[in-house]
């Protein structure tokens, strides 16, 4: 077996899906193949991260889902037409399902109705207006990415200690009525262990964005607006020699709605522009006597994002400016403690 074949075994090992023979083969190969040892570490790290970033479904949401009287909610007639785009939003209207949620459901557990959901009924109605998606490039800059990596890198020691639940051979995902506690425990533990995830909110004393041509928004980076990764994952098969035969006939659900999964990063109609946000942030920093170079990182989740670089070129903080309110959040990046960690531009 070549090394590509062992990649499959390495992956299956993470899932506890190896036979004894495969396990033995793999161990023997790993003992003599640095490439595959490295690959093993890489896949283990990926696995840990994925697990660490996967949250349990909160108990109340699980209960809500379990208690839904689906039969009482109407279903739309099937979409007709040769090219009926099944992957597009199947039902731009959501007229009736709200009623059973607001009314007392004649159902198993009326006690479990969620007040916040009821309050959100009007919001769900708004959603019914339909989805008009705008394709926007992701504006996460590579400098930002590299700086984030510095932070994530430091978190790994904590993540590495978290349990590996995948060895339990995939139990069906149900029957966990108390998932909320579990989830909360995991989450808070993870977040508490993570010294990087503290954040400071600036005093919210200034919601306006005065034009300020003299802000300190010079950047030390030139490529902050790059879209991460230009290659097409669909054509990018790192393992051409895998034995499994994939059927090519599956349609890609993304075809019919290109870009619908992009973040809606357009600024609000009457919100802050990126420049205004940067000016606002620069003013605030100046008022605090801090001197940082700000690099715009684009928008996501209704926030303009910036990195702040000190005189030594280290990214010391990330800033998020609310596009609507102008509220500023700061996420400090802890200083590196050991060795010359890869800073922006210094990957290895």
């Amino acid at each position, binding site marked *: 077996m070549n090394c590509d074949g062992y990649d499959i075994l390495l992956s299956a090992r993470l899932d506890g899906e190896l036979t004894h023979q495969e396990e033995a083969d793999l161990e023997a190969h790993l003992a003599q193949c640095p490439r595959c040892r490295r690959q093993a570490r890489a*896949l283990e790290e990926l696995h840990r991260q994925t697990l660490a970033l996967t949250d349990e479904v909160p108990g109340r949401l699980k209960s809500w*889902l379990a208690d839904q009287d689906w039969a009482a909610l109407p279903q739309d007639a099937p979409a007709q037409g040769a090219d009926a785009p099944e992957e597009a939003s*199947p039902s731009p209207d959501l007229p009736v399902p709200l009623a059973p949620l607001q009314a007392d459901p004649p159902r198993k557990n009326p006690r479990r109705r969620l007040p916040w959901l009821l309050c959100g009924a009007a919001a769900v109605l708004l*959603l019914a207006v339909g989805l008009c998606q705008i394709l926007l490039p992701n504006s996460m800059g590579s400098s930002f990415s590299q700086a984030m*990596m510095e932070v994530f890198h430091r978190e790994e020691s904590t993540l590495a200690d978290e349990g590996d639940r995948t060895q339990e051979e995939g139990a069906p995902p149900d029957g966990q009525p108390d998932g909320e506690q579990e989830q909360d425990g995991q989450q808070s533990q993870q977040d508490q262990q993570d010294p990087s995830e503290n954040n400071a909110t600036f005093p919210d004393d200034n919601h306006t964005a005065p034009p300020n041509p003299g802000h300190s928004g010079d950047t030390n980076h030139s490529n902050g607006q790059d879209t991460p990764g230009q290659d097409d994952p669909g054509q990018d098969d790192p393992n051409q020699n895998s034995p499994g035969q994939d059927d090519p006939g599956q349609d*890609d*659900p993304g075809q019919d709605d290109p870009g619908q999964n992009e973040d809606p990063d357009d600024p609000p109609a009457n919100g802050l522009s990126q420049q205004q946000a940067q000016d606002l942030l620069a003013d605030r920093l100046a008022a605090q006597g801090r001197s940082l170079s700000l690099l715009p990182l684009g928008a*996501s989740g209704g926030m303009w994002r910036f990195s702040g670089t000190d005189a030594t070129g280290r990214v010391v903080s990330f800033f998020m400016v609310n596009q609507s309110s102008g509220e500023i959040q700061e996420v400090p990046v802890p200083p590196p403690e050991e060795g010359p960690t890869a800073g922006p531009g210094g990957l290895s």
Partner: protein
Amino acid sequence: MPMQDDRQLVALAQQGDPEAFAQLVRRHQKMVYNLALGKTGSHHDAEEVTQTAFLKAWQGIRSFQGKAAFSSWLYRLTANAAIDLLRRRRAPALSLDDPDLPPLAAERRRLLWQAIDRLPEAQRAPLVLREMEGLSYREIAQALDLEEGTVKSRLARARLLLRRLLVENGLLREAAEEPMGKGGQRT
């Protein structure tokens, strides 16, 4: 209870069988919730998105023709619901209170799902069922109507590609060379 594949459950749900749909909900709720969390960065919003996604799935399931996997269709519904919610959240100030994840935690989840988004669908579906829903290879094969060997190889490819994408977007580092000395690989 023998595990039914998604295709069977969808067919039943399309005839109005609530229990079949409830099974689909149980099977996919973690994926939906985590995708929503990755997109919104807020537990509260993720719950709302999850509710909306499943409501719309039930309502629209008869338009689902089964050309793609149900989980892919649901994935899109969820992503769209999240986008719509974020858009609505523009007007009122974004809540930065308790229900939200700490910014860096939210950012990490966003980067993870941004990369998962970019996986080819054929790889993403098994990966999500494995990592999020914790299904065994046999169960994934049943759910997606695939051979187990196909599941196995697609998972490996999904992981290799996902890892590359995460190195690109900064969530992961390149694997170091032999950090623990010769032959010191972890098991």
